[in-house]
């Protein structure tokens, strides 16, 4: 149980830990959540977010989203904006090992009634076409040099090579390719681990889901329509995955590089070595930034190939083209990145490196980088709940400035993977879910048990807290009917 007494209540959904809490804190820490969510948070979150508050260059607050839980270095759900013009650092622990782990959502013009008779066929075929599991390899055969191109060009490479449509790119954060990715900054070992993994889901909490937008779960029909959700019981496809072994290796390589220079060369003292960092404007910091961007692009490419496979499978099962099935992208958004952005701080625009680890960018209407189609309504935000409980489509709001326009990314674990494995049995869970109308395929029973709905926070509570705090707005809640768990 969390020690809620340490916290200063700012509002019903914002709680502050003052800088007096720990020596070395440069800014206060702020945790978002209802009192219930805050009470359920692990004590380690307090410790971790206040450690983050000691990092050089941190601006305004060290933030933790309502789905926060402990992670490597930063808590998952951590947001930290570093002023790069005054010694701000970049930290792999603030981005996560699965660089650009993110969500993608695509609509169809099919209804639940039309898909229901084919759900097993669709899921079984997707299970074959989108490899899942720890060491899974993709069907895209790439040489190591091809892979270097992929990590510099992201989803653009895919579209050029026949995986998807040109218009898909405008519905991806950074248009599917972040500039400044430099393959010269990644190790051979990272390439080894990544070059055959394009088009794969991976393991852990990654999944691909067929979902339904039920009439009663549409909170804002106007906004929903703008995002392509136009009819009752419309079927959509959502998936969650990242940069696989590649991103993991990039993060590991640079953690080791930073540990060597952090104190000896730059005199940075940190409380927890898992927060290893380097000044953003140092050769090491810039090298990681360029390598991390390769991870971002690899992940965009991975999701682009998966999207293409989903279109192929639907087209095969329903005997119509993907265009005919209206399989348009809604959006692709990352929740493990650090990006250089301009934000207004106390009336002055500043260049900040915003770390979002298990936190989703949530840009407001009118902001640059929001696709033209969404300029008037704000950036779509895709939230993956647990596979049993449902997911959300949200939109960014102007009051999101308080969190550098960031919101939650999922429901957040309340139970360790091990404890979940001890509590549930995958075989039984699959049967229970099938009884509830969700057909699940998984590469591992234990992996399935880890993802049981009961191992997660209540996603509805998380999303409500984010809305009450004014960092995102609900559009649609989506209900799963078919799931492939990595």
């Amino acid at each position, binding site marked *: 149980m969390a020690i809620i007494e340490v916290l200063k209540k700012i509002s019903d959904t914002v709680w502050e830990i003052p800088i007096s809490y720990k020596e070395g804190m440069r800014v206060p820490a702020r945790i978002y959540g209802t009192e219930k969510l805050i009470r359920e948070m692990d004590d380690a979150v307090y*410790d971790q977010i206040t450690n983050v508050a000691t990092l050089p260059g941190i601006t305004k607050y060290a933030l933790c989203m309502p789905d926060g839980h402990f992670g490597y*270095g930063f808590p998952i759900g951590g947001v930290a904006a570093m002023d790069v013009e005054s010694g701000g650092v970049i930290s792999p622990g603030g981005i996560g090992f699965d660089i650009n782990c993110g969500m993608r959502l695509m609509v169809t013009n099919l209804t639940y009634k039309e898909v229901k008779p084919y759900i097993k066929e669709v899921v079984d075929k997707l299970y074959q076409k989108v490899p899942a599991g720890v060491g899974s390899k993709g069907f895209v055969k790439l040489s190591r040099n091809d892979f270097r191109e992929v990590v510099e060009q992201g989803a653009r490479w895919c579209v050029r090579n026949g995986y998807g449509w040109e218009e898909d790119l405008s519905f991806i954060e950074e248009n599917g390719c972040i500039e400044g990715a430099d393959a010269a900054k990644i190790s051979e*070992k990272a390439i080894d681990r990544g070059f055959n993994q394009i088009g794969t889901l991976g393991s852990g909490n990654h999944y691909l889901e067929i979902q339904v937008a039920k009439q009663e779960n549409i909170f804002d029909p106007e906004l929903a329509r703008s995002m392509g959700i136009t009819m009752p019981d419309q079927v959509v496809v959502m998936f969650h995955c990242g940069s696989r072994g590649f991103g993991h290796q990039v993060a*590991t390589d640079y953690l080791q590089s930073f540990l060597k220079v952090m104190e000896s060369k730059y005199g940075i003292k940190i409380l927890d*070595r*898992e927060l290893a960092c380097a000044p953003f404007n140092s050769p090491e910091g810039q090298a990681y930034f360029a390598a991390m961007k390769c991870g971002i692009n690899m992940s965009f490419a991975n999701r682009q190939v998966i999207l293409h496979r989903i279109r192929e499978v639907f087209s095969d099962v329903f005997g119509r083209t993907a265009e005919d099935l209206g399989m348009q992208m809604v959006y692709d958004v990352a929740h493990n990145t650090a990006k250089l952005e301009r934000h207004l701080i106390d009336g002055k625009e500043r260049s900040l490196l915003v770390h979002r680890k298990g936190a989703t960018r949530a840009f407001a209407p009118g902001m640059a980088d929001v696709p033209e189609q969404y300029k008037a309504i704000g950036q779509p935000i895709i939230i993956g709940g647990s596979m049993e409980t449902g997911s959300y489509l949200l939109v960014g709001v102007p009051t999101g400035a308080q969190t550098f326009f960031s919101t939650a990314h999922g429901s957040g674990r309340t139970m*360790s993977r091990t404890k979940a494995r001890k509590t549930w049995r995958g075989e039984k869970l699959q049967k229970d879910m099938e009884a509830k109308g969700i057909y699940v395929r998984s590469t591992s029973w234990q992996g399935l048990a*880890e993802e049981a709905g009961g191992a997660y926070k209540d996603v509805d509570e998380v999303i409500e807290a984010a809305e009450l705090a004014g960092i995102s707005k609900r559009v649609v809640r989506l209900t799963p009917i078919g799931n492939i768990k990595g």
Partner: protein
Amino acid sequence: MQVRTPLTVITGPLGSGKTTLLRHILDTVSKKIAILMNEFGEIAIDSKIIAGKNVQMADLGGGCVCCSLLGEFEAAVDEIIDTVDPDIIVVETTGVAEPDALVFDIQESLTKVRLDGVVTVIDADAMVKYPSVGHTSRIQIEAADTIILNKIDLVSESELKAIEEKLHSLNQVASILATKRCQVDPDLLFGIGRERVEAPPYHVHQPEFESFSYTTNAICDRTCFEEFADSLRTEVYRAKGFVKFSDATYLFNFVAGRWELELFEQEGTQLVFIGKQLSELKDQIINNLKLCEQ
């Protein structure tokens, strides 16, 4: 009866000395060892790599192999046992991995191996530099049966004491072995294998540790032996070997107060005790053991 292959997990934060420990183990343990890693580290150099379905293997000579994980862990372990049949499997996790799920998997689902122990390598110098023990490091420490507190030459004696206390507060049952460059007696890390009766391998003994062995053909009373195991004092860090009861012979494995017995095809009782200042307790331990003989 199928004998389960002992499996030891080596974990610890980045740069704490896991690879150094593995090299040391390969240098000092004369058994067939299979090392399983997420990917080839620095161990597998200049060697022929054989690609399998679930693991890639590199021959290290002397029957030892280095394996890198390609598929699911369980399939990889099966493949290693089927192809090289090692005496010991050592799994090295990456420095950023949380080992608890892996440990749970090994105990729950792997039928061909027996978890011999979790060894966590901790960098003493880093424990001084970074006062807050990270989340992943904490899980690694909590999972340990043995903590190798490495790089002690970089810290003062009072710092070392404080680190030991901190580690103990996170894990009350693990034995803490202070080392430089991971120079540790491997007997303290591994259980006894089938070749125990053959010539003992060359060891660099920890100066403060002493060991003695006891052999008998007498049959032990099981209840009495279990009480004896419970009564072993904290000076005994490690005890292992075989003990013959009326029904069969069992493998006895004792680490820092915790112990287990497992059916084993072996004749007679043969036990080794390792611990601090053990010579003073030797007679007492042997006498207690003799009381159990029928």
